[in-house]
């Protein structure tokens, strides 16, 4: 979920960050201290699996990984084997609030990773998507293989909103009662905080992601499985396919707006690498140099330098572009399925 990710840099206490990174199990191939570099930002990755995964076997580490943004120095933090699909980090909430979406359920740390708690019981499992609200951090939405849920108490108790497999989850950033849930046959919209849902018009494909314009909340884009990208100009009520060339028929896992230049959008796609549009989503170009045949699952942009773009891939780790997406270089975690990336300021 990208909507609240690129916010002003909070000032952290270095001690808090030491506490974060003083716990958990490091992956063996990482050497040296995490911040022995000039990077002032930290990249967080939700890694679903790493090279090969079989339940019950000694698998390579997965879960929460962190690295600086200058050079890849990844470390596996928190717990190494929990099948992480998504994460939300609200550094200013509590003493550093982290929500993670995992096969085991929802894990929450309210002290930047010093202590963790699985807040869900057996009834909530295979948590795939997650949205936390910065203005009310105790509220978190999740999408699971068995439905969508909301908690208003940091994940301790849950109310079911939908009972089907959730591909995408979005909460309108100007009206929190508007909840978008992407399912296998379309997009469903609630305008009453999740009490009722209506099917959005014109979009009957599996909806994998929804992104909302940061300044004009009427404009939303949706990425689908095999049906390309759709656009809505009426707050998600009706949708039309956009783009031409390689976009129709594409599978798109995430779409983001460049926060400072929201007419520019980036999309993470399965077969076309990174797609970029500089005209409000009307046309899209592939940015594949260095990414041939690598499926891209998630994407984020450096808060200070929009030329720096990081992408997570399916089975190929993380890549970085320092030229606005024209070329890409591996950025570690080779072989990993990276489901989500977030960047937050590092301690000074």
């Amino acid at each position, binding site marked *: 979920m990208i909507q609240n990710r690129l916010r002003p840099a909070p000032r952290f206490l270095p001690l808090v960050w030491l506490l974060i990174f003083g716990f958990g199990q490091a992956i063996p191939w990482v050497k040296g201290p995490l911040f022995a570099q000039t990077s002032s930002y930290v990249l967080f990755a939700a890694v*679903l*699996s790493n090279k*090969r*995964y*079989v*339940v*019950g*076997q*000694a698998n390579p580490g997965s879960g929460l990984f962190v690295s600086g943004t200058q050079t890849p120095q990844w470390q596996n933090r928190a*717990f190494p*084997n*929990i*099948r992480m*699909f998504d994460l939300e980090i609200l550094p200013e909430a509590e003493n550093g609030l982290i929500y993670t979406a995992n*096969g*085991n359920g929802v*894990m929450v740390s309210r002290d930047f990773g010093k*202590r*963790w*708690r*699985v807040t869900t*019981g*057996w009834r909530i*499992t*295979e948590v*795939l998507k997650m949205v936390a609200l910065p203005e009310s951090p105790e509220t978190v939405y999740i999408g699971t*293989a*068995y439905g969508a849920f909301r908690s208003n108490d940091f994940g301790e108790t849950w109310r079911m909103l939908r009972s*089907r*497999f959730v591909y995408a989850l979005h909460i309108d950033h100007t009206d929190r009662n508007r909840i978008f849930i992407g399912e*296998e046959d379309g997009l469903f919209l609630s305008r009453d905080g999740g009490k009722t849902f209506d099917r959005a018009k014109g979009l009957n494909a599996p909806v994998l992601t929804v992104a909302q314009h940061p300044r004009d909340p009427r404009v939303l884009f949706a990425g689908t*499985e095999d049906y390309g990208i759709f656009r809505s100009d009426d707050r998600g009520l009706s949708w039309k396919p956009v783009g031409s060339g390689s976009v129709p028929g594409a*599978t798109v*896992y995430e779409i983001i707006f460049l926060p400072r230049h929201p007419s520019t959008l980036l999309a993470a796609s*399965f077969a076309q690498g990174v797609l970029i549009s500089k005209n409000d989503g009307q046309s899209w170009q592939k940015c594949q140099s260095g990414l041939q045949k690598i*499926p891209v*699952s998630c994407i984020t942009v450096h808060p200070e330098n929009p030329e720096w773009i990081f992408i997570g891939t*399916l*089975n190929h780790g993380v890549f970085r572009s320092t030229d606005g997406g024209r070329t890409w270089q591996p950025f570690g975690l080779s072989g990993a*399925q990276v489901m989500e990336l977030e960047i937050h300021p590092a301690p000074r």
Partner: protein
Amino acid sequence: MQTRQRIILRVLIALFLLSAPITARSSSFEERRRRILEQIASQEAGGGFAAVSARLALRRDLPRARSNFWALLNAPSGDMFFVLPMMGTYLYGYHDWDDAIHRKVRHVWKTYLPYRGDTENHWVMWHTALLLAAQTWPDLPANEWANGRSSQENYRDAREYLDFWFQTVTTLGQGEFDSPDYLDKFIAPLCLLYDFAEDSLLRRKAEMALHWLLADYAIDYLDGAYTGGHSRIYDAHLLDPMRDPARGIGYLYFGASQFPQEAWFGLTVYCALSSYRVPAVIQRLATDRRRPFFARERKRVRNIIRFGRERNPPVYKANYMSMHFSLGSVDGGLQQPIQLHTWDVTYLLDEGRCDNLFSLHPYFSARELAMFFPEPVKILVQDIIKSKTTYSQEDKWTGGSPYERTYQHQNTIIVLYALAPNTPYRHMDYYFPKTLSRREVDSSGWIFAQGGKTFIAVRPFQPGHWREEKTAFRFRSPHLKNGHVTVAFEADAFSSWKAFKTAIRGTHLDLSALESRTEVRYITLDGDTLRFRFPDQRWLNGRTVDLSETPLFDGPYLQGDGGVLRIMHGGETLILDFNKPEIRYEKAGE
């Protein structure tokens, strides 16, 4: 009774039983469990939990057992396959452990957070281990557990799931049903609950569930072989049935004419250590094969999380059991990802060995996997074949297909294939093991075979070609509309091999509607007319066969539904009533 006192009492009972003289009444069970423990303890490389427990129980090489246990606790890995046997070895050896070991096990729960898995067996193992740990350390706060939940929270969560599972299995049916590879993953945790759960109601439910699952196994048991359709089986164990892990369970509780030397025992050690005993009526059910019988069962499909109209559609099983063979099936389609085994004829060979014939359509798809697994659809096949390497191969021998359906009546099965033109592999494969003593392709279109004392006749609906492989001859028939009739008989039902062939040649098969309606009609030797139209229309002697009316168990020895199972044999009836819950016995005439 306090937790530790209960554990010590249970362990002492188990040890007493192990050391007790072998009496006439219990000799066979005691011998079998001792032999299993000897086998596990003698494994040279046996540093695993099972070997530790076996050595402890046999009072053999105790320092080594302790050091092995310590080493294992130093490196937690393997999720529920670690914590379940860890708790088993810890609890059955409780009085042997010093304070350092007690602290070490506690430390594992404080620092190690396993993935709790995504299958039924994973969850039963995980929640059993968690419950037993939570009751062993009942009053610890959240920060003493790796998952950040207090002892009470962990206990409550595990208990709630286990109760849910008991209810599901006894009303909807098991999802990972009749699995030679996973039976032990249910029986072992239930034995642990039976021995160590403090709550008497939970212990009773564990005992009832053990009876239930073992009766379910017994009805498909043929001298060590787990016969018929399986929700999950690995290729290796399908092609070499002497190696499947359920053999250890079967040998322990029912006996077999051959010790399963080649089987993987692993979790069976905890069954051998348990004070649980299978009721005699269930053991007789598993071993009395004097009279053939036909039984039906209903199970459920594993949780369908997308691309389905129903979370757990029913699975309909049928099994014809005879003295030297069994013909068993599920009704077909996609009921489990990857490892479904839809049907087979299992026949006994000399010296307690067995083998089986079966057919399949080798199907794979991202959509099938996505029905059951939540990862991104497009990478699922690629991910799965990293570990299940045969999944996408055209020569594989396990897996269901949406283009396959069966209709079994007694010792006859019709299998129909209606393959989509765009399916990756457009053929039916039929497995004829090399252990067959006869395999004759007849000019009538029938293939006649003999395995042990079983005569088998197969009539493919379309021509094909043969290929010799390591363990079998593969009959491949590349046609979109396809299938076969397969029938099996005791050899002594005929005066000779020739008489058998003559009789089968005289049966009537109507294939005139195969291409147009994917429908066939066959009149059996007994004169029953079976008509089968793909996918799910079945008629017997002109009357519709409605499988949706099938209860959980329906046959001469097992009858049950809605949480109640009646296990009947030899004038004795054992009734498991999960609605109360209670166990009752009835004798004939009562």
